[in-house]
Structure formats: structure tokens, C-alpha cells
């Protein structure tokens, strides 16, 4: 399990051909408690992915630092599993081999990899698809495999960058429930990026709203709904109240972002 502390982390991208640099993330502080489920909500282009990639170690902050369990992040590692918005399964590996990729890199022997993969395929509902190649799977199944692949390393935390963004509404709801079940079972620390308000409220314990670019954390809304959560909670007055509060907040940012890009 892992506690994350983001200390004054900012990111500026160098300007294109001598142009002015782009500031994607304003230096910000954020702590995520062990086993917490935090959603990062904000309009497109506000720096959500950039911040997540910095925590993953895939991108370097221009200032500040990220600590995971007190150790400074210097690069990507198996302790932080990630699921991307785009489909990133390895096309040349079957579902089972994709899930076993991380363990394989750690030198886990084949029989044990198979056991891990079997357990995860059952958990995400992919039993029977072990020998399918990614191109044979629907988008939802590919993302379930990607989730299982990230879980196979038994990471301390999960970083999810709009993992269901490309899925249709029905599939998306089912995936949300699946991820919730995974969290309720394992209680891994989760940092979940989305621009979908309902999704954020349904799954997270804390929802952080980011401002339009350059990204800062504008407000934080706690979601006191109990676990385990059921999809019917989406229709409760409490849920609606939180959703409305967030809608208000993010609407302003979306308007600002639109004005900025005009």
C-alpha cells in the first residue's frame, strides 16, 4: 500500500520553435492517504494526464517532487500500475501473456505467471479468453485486460488516466463497478483521472477539481457515500447533491478553458 505526497510539483513544456513555453501544471501540493481513492477531475487540456504521468515517473516535473511512501519518484516502476486511455495491450501477446508481462519482467516462472493470470482473468471476467489476441477483443475487454495487467504486479497504487474514456456508456458503467469491486477487495491507493463527474463521484472518496490550464487544484469535494457502492447510489439525493456541486465548479473551468482556446 502506498501514501503519495506531491510537493510543489509543476510542469512547463518548452515552447515550439522559440515560442513561449506552455505551462501545463502550476506548482501544486497534494497528499493522498494510503488506500484512498482519489479522482482528479478537470476539463480537457488542464494538465491531468501530465500530473499523473509525473507520479508514474513517465514525465519529469520542472519543479517539486513526488514521494511514494516517503521515497522520491525517479522513474516508472512496478510499484505504480497504470492504465492508459488508449489501448496499450501488446498486440503480439495473448490476454494471458499480456497479464503475465509484468511478472515475467520480474523473473516470475511461467507456472506461477499462469496462476496469477488465471486469478486476475476470473476477477475481471475474462475467463475463457486467455488465448485471444488483443485485436480479437472489444474495447471494454481490452481495458479489463489492461487493468488485470496492471494488477498482476500487485502494485501499491493504481494510476488510471481516463481508462474508460473511449468506451460506450453501458460498458463504461460496468467497468466502473468492476474497478470499484477491485478497490473494495484490495484497497490499493488509486489516483483516477477523468472528466466525467458522475464517474468521479461514484468511485472516489475524494474528488479534486483542477482549474483550466495551467492546472491547479481548485476545490476538493469529499464523497461520504458508504462502501460497497451499488450503481443505484447514482440516483440518491446525496449523490445528486455532490454531482451538482462539482458540476457548478467544473462548468466555470470549462467556460474559462473554452474562452482561452477561442
Amino acid at each position, binding site marked *: 500500500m502506498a501514501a503519495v505526497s506531491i510537493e510543489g510539483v509543476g510542469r512547463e513544456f518548452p515552447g515550439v520553435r522559440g515560442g513561449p513555453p506552455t505551462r501545463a501544471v502550476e506548482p501544486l501540493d497534494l497528499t493522498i492517504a494510503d488506500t484512498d481513492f482519489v479522482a482528479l477531475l478537470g476539463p480537457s487540456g488542464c494538465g491531468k494526464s501530465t500530473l499523473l504521468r509525473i507520479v508514474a515517473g513517465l514525465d519529469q516535473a520542472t519543479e517539486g517532487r513526488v514521494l511514494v511512501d516517503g521515497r522520491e519518484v525517479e522513474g516508472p516502476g512496478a510499484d505504480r500500475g497504470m492504465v492508459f486511455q488508449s489501448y496499450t495491450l501488446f498486440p503480439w501477446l495473448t490476454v494471458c501473456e499480456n497479464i503475465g508481462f509484468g511478472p515475467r519482467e520480474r523473473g516470475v516462472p511461467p507456472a506461477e505467471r499462469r496462476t496469477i493470470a488465471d486469478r486476475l482473468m476470473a476477477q475481471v471476467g475474462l475467463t475463457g479468453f486467455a488465448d485471444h489476441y488483443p485485436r480479437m477483443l472489444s474495447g471494454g475487454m481490452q481495458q479489463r485486460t*489492461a487493468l488485470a495487467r*496492471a494488477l498482476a504486479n500487485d502494485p501499491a497504487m493504481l494510476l488510471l488516466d481516463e481508462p474508460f474514456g473511449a468506451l460506450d456508456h453501458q460498458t463504461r458503467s460496468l467497468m466502473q463497478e468492476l474497478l470499484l469491486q477491485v478497490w473494495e477487495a484490495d484497497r490499493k491507493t488509486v489516483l483516477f483521472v477523468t472528466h466525467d463527474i458522475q464517474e468521479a463521484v461514484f468511485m472516489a472518496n475524494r474528488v479534486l477539481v483542477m482549474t483550466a490550464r495551467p492546472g491547479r487544484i481548485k476545490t476538493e469535494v469529499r464523497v461520504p457515500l458508504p462502501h460497497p457502492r451499488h450503481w443505484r447510489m447514482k440516483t440518491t439525493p446525496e449523490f445528486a447533491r455532490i454531482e451538482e456541486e462539482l458540476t457548478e465548479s467544473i462548468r466555470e473551468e470549462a467556460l474559462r478553458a473554452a474562452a482561452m482556446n477561442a
Partner: protein
Amino acid sequence: MTGTVGRRRRPSTFAPLTPISPRARVTFGIAFFVLFFAAWSVATWGGFVKPLFLADPLKTFAAGWRLFVEFGFAGDVAVTISRVVGGFVIAALLAVPLGIAMGAFKPIEAFFEPFVSFARYLPASAFIPLLILWLGVDEAQKLAVIFIGAFFQIVLMIAVLIGETRRDLVEAAYTLGAGSRGIVLRVMLPYAAPQIAETLRLVLGWAWTYVIVAELIGADSGIGHMIMDSQRFLDTGQMIFGIFLIGAIGLVTDLGFRAVNRLLFPWQLGR
């Protein structure tokens, strides 16, 4: 007035990218060969071209038969094939690892790329006189011509293919705990493998050109040598048969390569 509403439109065979059945594909492919032979027959037997310049199909295949039965041509064919395969395999064994290293590691690429790009344009056949001087007219010289022609091309093309590995796959592998070695061997290499195989197939085709040129200039065996010999006797039948045979061998290796690729890379079936 029935049947006009909701009539299903059949896709035209000539709509872009409309697939064609395997049977039709083979039929079309063979049809061109039939047309080709028909045109050749008309040109020769119809008296449009003098026999001195172009032998008719029957004479050509009769000449081929005589080559194999009377002149031990099978030995020449074997020699040429072994040269092509030998030179190509040596070039590939050295070029593929270098290409992978260049594609994956930018300092290595910065070091080799300018020279390899330069060397790629050096025409292999122009080296033949020099290579004869250095290596004589033995096998080493033939292998060297093919090596020069194939090596630099393979290096560059593979460096590009490896360098084009999808970044998001590399990043995903990093977050799964892969190190440099894992990224190169278990992400970049399998990602590029099908296209690497395609590249090798292409370059093997070029290797045939180099070997024949080498055999035309200084050799006492091989298909190219036979073609040169036939010229002295103005035997266009033999010359054409020799050229034809190279095409046929090329076609067969090509089909073999494709079959092997389908076996090796099953995940991309139907692409």
C-alpha cells in the same frame, strides 16, 4: 414497384479496399502469367520479333532442358543460390543487431547513421572491379558484393522500424517494471518483427540482382556466368531461360517467406 425500397446494394468488386476471395486472387494472378505467355508467343511465332533477338517459349524451355541435362546447370543454380543465401545471411546476422541497437539507443544511432546513410548509396556493383582486385574472383568476392549491397540497407531500414515502436506501448512496459533490456527485447523487437521480416524479404530480392551482376563480370560458375556464356553463342533461349529461372526462384522464396511470416506472427492475421 416492389423491391426498390430497401434493396441491398452489392458492393462493387472495384470499390476501394473491397476484399477479394482467395480463389479469385489466385485466378487473377495466374491469368496474368497466361497473358504474358500469350503475348510472348504472338510476338515470336507471329514473326513480329526475329528469333535472333527473342527465342520463342518452346525454344526457351527446350534450351533450359538442355542446360540441365547436358551442361550440368543444376550445379550453377546451386552455386548461385548458395552465394545469395550466404551473402544475405551474413549481412542480416550483422545488420539486424546493429539496426536494433541504432533504433533503440539514440547515441548509437547518432554515431552510425550518417555513415550508413552514405554507404547505402554506394552502388554494390561498382565495387566489383575493386573487390576482384582485393579478393580475386572466388566466393569471397561474390559474398562481399552481396554483403555491401544488403548490409547498409538492412541496418537503416531496421533502425527506422525499431525507432517507430509505439511510444505508449513502451511506456506501458515501463510502468509494468520493464528495464532497458526488457523494452528492447520484449517490446521493440516483437513490435517491429513482422516488418523486419518484410524488410529482409525485400532485400533478399535485391541480393539476387547483385549476385547476377557479380557473376556476369567475373565468374566461372553460376546462373549469371551461364547467361554471359550464352551471349557468346547468341543463344537467346538460354539467356531468357536463365532470367526466367531467377524470377521463378524469387517467386518461390517469396511465397515461402510469406508462409513463414504467417506462422511466426499469428497475432496480425487479418490485418
